[in-house]
């Protein structure tokens, strides 16, 4: 009797389990889960990012309208948002806090006064970026030139047959950290960057620090892409030559 009763209970329990699984499969809960699995991984995040970008853009447009109307609060919000970017870029160009501070003031004053000339063909941040680059570059050009550097001395040289003039070319890439301390290395780099022509220095900063594309750099500096590439390559060869000489090797 007891055995029959327990068997009936077990069968009933299994029945309920089957019903429950069928209900779960076709209920909206189960359906939602299936839909979720069908969507691409990360699609939700993309949607959120897109919405955030749209909101930020709208926010930016409101700010620009405010600045154009001479609203100081909008200008303050804009200043807080972009201060760090403008300051660090100016610092890279000029190498000291006092000059960077001057550039920051000059740039934001220009933005405030000339906001009405912004036509909206590019993003406002791109406009600000161009103003910063050109203001810093103008300041760099005003600086008294130091002793003339003979760039050619540090460039690679080749024989008439096109092979390296001094062979073998030493691979000092692994030794550099052993021979000079990090501080010494950074000092060499700093001094060499300061010896570059202002426009070459600008190209190096925008490429190696800002990680801008050659096209973006060309637009910001009013150069052709080819000219940007040529200047960047020449500057790097000079930097490489300086490092090589400092480590006791030929630039070639």
């Amino acid at each position, binding site marked *: 009797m007891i055995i029959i009763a327990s068997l009936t209970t077990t069968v009933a329990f299994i029945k309920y389990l089957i019903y429950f699984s069928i209900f779960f499969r076709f209920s909206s809960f189960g359906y939602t889960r299936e839909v979720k699995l069908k969507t691409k991984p990360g699609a939700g995040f993309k949607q959120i990012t897109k919405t955030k970008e749209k909101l930020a853009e709208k926010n930016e447009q409101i700010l620009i309208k405010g600045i154009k109307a001479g609203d*100081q609060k909008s*200008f*303050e919000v804009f*200043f*807080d948002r972009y*201060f*760090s970017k403008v*300051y*660090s870029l100016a*610092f*890279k160009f000029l190498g000291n*806090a006092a000059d960077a*501070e001057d550039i*920051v*003031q000059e740039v*934001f*004053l220009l933005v*405030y006064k000339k906001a009405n000339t912004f036509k909206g063909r590019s993003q406002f941040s791109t406009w600000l970026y161009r103003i910063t680059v050109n203001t810093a570059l103008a300041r760099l050009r005003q600086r008294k030139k130091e002793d003339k550097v003979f760039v050619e001395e540090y460039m*690679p040289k*080749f024989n008439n*047959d*096109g*092979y*390296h003039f001094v*062979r*073998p*070319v*030493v*691979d*000092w*890439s692994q030794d*550099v950290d052993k021979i000079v301390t*990090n501080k010494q*290395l*950074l000092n060499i*780099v*700093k001094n060499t*960057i300061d010896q570059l022509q202002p426009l070459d220095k600008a190209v*190096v*900063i925008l490429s*190696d*620090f800002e990680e801008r594309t050659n096209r973006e750099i060309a637009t910001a500096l009013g150069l052709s892409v080819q000219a940007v*590439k040529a200047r*960047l*390559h020449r500057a*790097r*060869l000079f*930097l*490489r030559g300086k*490092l*090589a000489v400092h480590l006791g090797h030929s630039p070639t």
Partner: protein
Amino acid sequence: MVKKMTSKRSRSKKVETCKQATSLIMDYLTGEMNSMTKRAFEEHLSFCPDCIAFLRTYKKTIQAVQSFFDTIPLKKKGFQQTLKRKLKKKIN
């Protein structure tokens, strides 16, 4: 016009000497090189230890420049607010 630009871009370049290889290093590192030129560049490297050494030291130079830029000190605390106050005075 578009066709002309495309054909100019995809034109492969000779890499027979170290001078030619050196002039193409940047394109090689940024991947702005068509497959024919890339193959020729790598073929030159395969028998030229001088150019391998040159390429490695060129890359090391870029790294050194990037690490220099990373060490630029951050502004002092409160600096931003001071500057903002100065700017507001100038505007008014």
